[in-house]
């Protein structure tokens, strides 16, 4: 299937999802749906670097928070429309990703992973000490109740996140089928051999880091409007770091379908578990699932299904 056809198909699905949700006509569904879609974007973004090139990013929360705090910063200066904020948030996170990648990706992969882990702690320190964006107290963003054409504001945010999910999935699938994707795969399989055969590995890794970081920042940019009151602890929440790794790992890292399945499954499960049990227990479940899947089913749900199909044939 050509990328353009795929994009049109995804848009059709997205429109169907939007009208189905509107037909249910319950605000909670929009709030829950927004969170699940946000995880679709984060998981897909993580997988562009982690799944395709094999470099692990533990700092998803940092990139997400960068997007969210760019919005807070700009909101205080001058209120801009959210789509523009998404572009800016993505830009900021992309640049930080590029810079970090440039410093650490020339070395062994482990250093990049460690640096991303530390990045989250440091950025949180910076934000906590920066009074302009609210410091440790947090910042209020007052969200309008209604917006022209669409109606309730939460529906507008939901629609934006739906669009972001469509963009992220199209990019991920596009990469898989392009020369870029083959380049990424050579890095994942044998970086030394790739380098020796003339694959520009550093440049490819930097492209992946920048793209992945930018998409995470884009997912974070509308977040202050969604939550209304942004604290460092909610923007840098553990759930972002762990979910954006667990979802692709559980779904399957080799194609765009894996993160999508993982995000929808785990995201919905958590929406239900948070309401019925507690948020700490549901994070524990995600962590245990992650450990279990990497040990028992290294190729995730997609791998399990592929194995099952092969066996029944």
């Amino acid at each position, binding site marked *: 299937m050509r990328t353009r056809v795929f994009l049109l198909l995804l848009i059709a699905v997205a429109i169907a999802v939007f009208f189905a949700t509107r037909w249910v006509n319950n605000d909670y569904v929009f709030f829950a749906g927004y969170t699940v879609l946000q995880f679709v974007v984060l998981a897909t973004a993580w997988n562009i670097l982690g799944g395709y090139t094999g470099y*692990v990013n533990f700092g998803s929360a940092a990139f997400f928070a960068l997007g969210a705090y760019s919005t807070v910063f700009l909101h205080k200066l001058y209120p801009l429309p959210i789509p523009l904020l998404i572009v800016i948030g993505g830009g900021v996170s992309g640049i930080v990703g590029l810079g970090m990648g440039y410093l650490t990706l020339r070395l062994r992969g482990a250093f990049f*992973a460690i640096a991303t882990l*530390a990045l989250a*702690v*440091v950025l949180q*320190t910076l934000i906590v000490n920066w009074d302009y964006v609210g410091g440790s107290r947090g910042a209020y963003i007052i969200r309008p109740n209604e917006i022209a054409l669409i109606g309730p504001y939460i529906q507008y945010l939901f629609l934006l996140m739906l669009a972001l999910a469509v963009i992220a999935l199209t990019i991920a699938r596009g990469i898989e089928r392009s020369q870029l994707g083959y380049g990424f795969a050579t890095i994942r399989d044998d970086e030394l051999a790739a380098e020796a055969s003339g694959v520009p590995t550093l440049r490819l890794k930097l492209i992946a880091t920048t793209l992945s970081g930018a998409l995470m920042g884009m997912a974070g940019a509308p977040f202050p409007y969604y939550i209304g009151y942004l604290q460092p602890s909610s923007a840098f929440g553990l759930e972002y770091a762990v979910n954006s790794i667990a979802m692709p790992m559980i779904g399957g890292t080799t194609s765009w379908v894996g993160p999508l399945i993982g995000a929808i499954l785990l995201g919905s499960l958590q929406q239900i578990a948070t309401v019925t049990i507690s948020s700490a227990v549901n*994070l*524990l479940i995600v962590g245990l699932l992650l*450990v279990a899947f990497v040990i028992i089913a290294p190729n995730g749900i997609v791998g399990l299904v592929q194995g099952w199909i092969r066996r029944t044939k």
Partner: protein
Amino acid sequence: MGRGKQVELSFDLLINAVIAGILLGGFYTAVTLGVSISFGILDIVNIAHPAFIILGSYIAYIVNARLGIDPIAVSILMLPVFYLLGAGVYQVYYESFERRGQESLRGLSFFFGLLFVTEVMLILVFGVDYRYVEAPYIGPSWRLGVMDFPLRMLVPCIAALALFAALELYLSYTFIGRAIKAVAQDQLALRLMGASPVRIKRIAFGISIATAAVAGALLIIIQPVEPSVGREYIGRVFAICVLGGLGSLPGTVIGAMLLGILESFTATFYGPSWAPAVAFGVLLLTLAFRPAGLLGR
């Protein structure tokens, strides 16, 4: 007159910042030694190490609160338990990832999952309240002229240096110790010498986790502990490891002291809330300019 007083005061401040930094660095040595072995020598990127340290802190806390036993004594009693825990974790890691050559993506995610699961379990059991221990050396302080040596910092520093000395002697003078060093250099040669690399790595990883028991007890002597404190140590531990040079225990001591002094200066002159950023800066600068570290191979 007033000016002289000011100079004197800032000199006091300076010398005490250096002392505090060295004592803190001593403690950081204990925290990092385990990672120096696992990451530096065995090439296992155990990012879950801080979680084991926090586990050590909570065990020291429980025993201290129930039975009133000294936290350092508790940690020494816990050494075999942590050793077995480490050996078990290595066995799982080896079977699931190392043997299949999947260390980089899945192995790292495995340790990340361990880190995360341990933290969330501690939160579920103990909540997010800060816990602390009681011991006679928490509180009093030795004074030498203008110099101030809080025992709360001095005792962990000495214990950490003793741990370092014991490990360095073990690695340099025993057969298994030297085999552990050899694992990093040439596994085939090691096999020809009649030692199984997997067994040696299991022992070494067990030792590395055992040090976390001691580091955890020292941590809870120095400061009250809650489950997420461990995350602050990930950046520090790896920054020290890289700065000192991978696989070099003396390098680890030097790196730890340097970071301790830098953080102490930052805390004294800019405020303690900036201290966590120092380690990250050190890590990035070392990786950018001298990735082999100070005493690196």
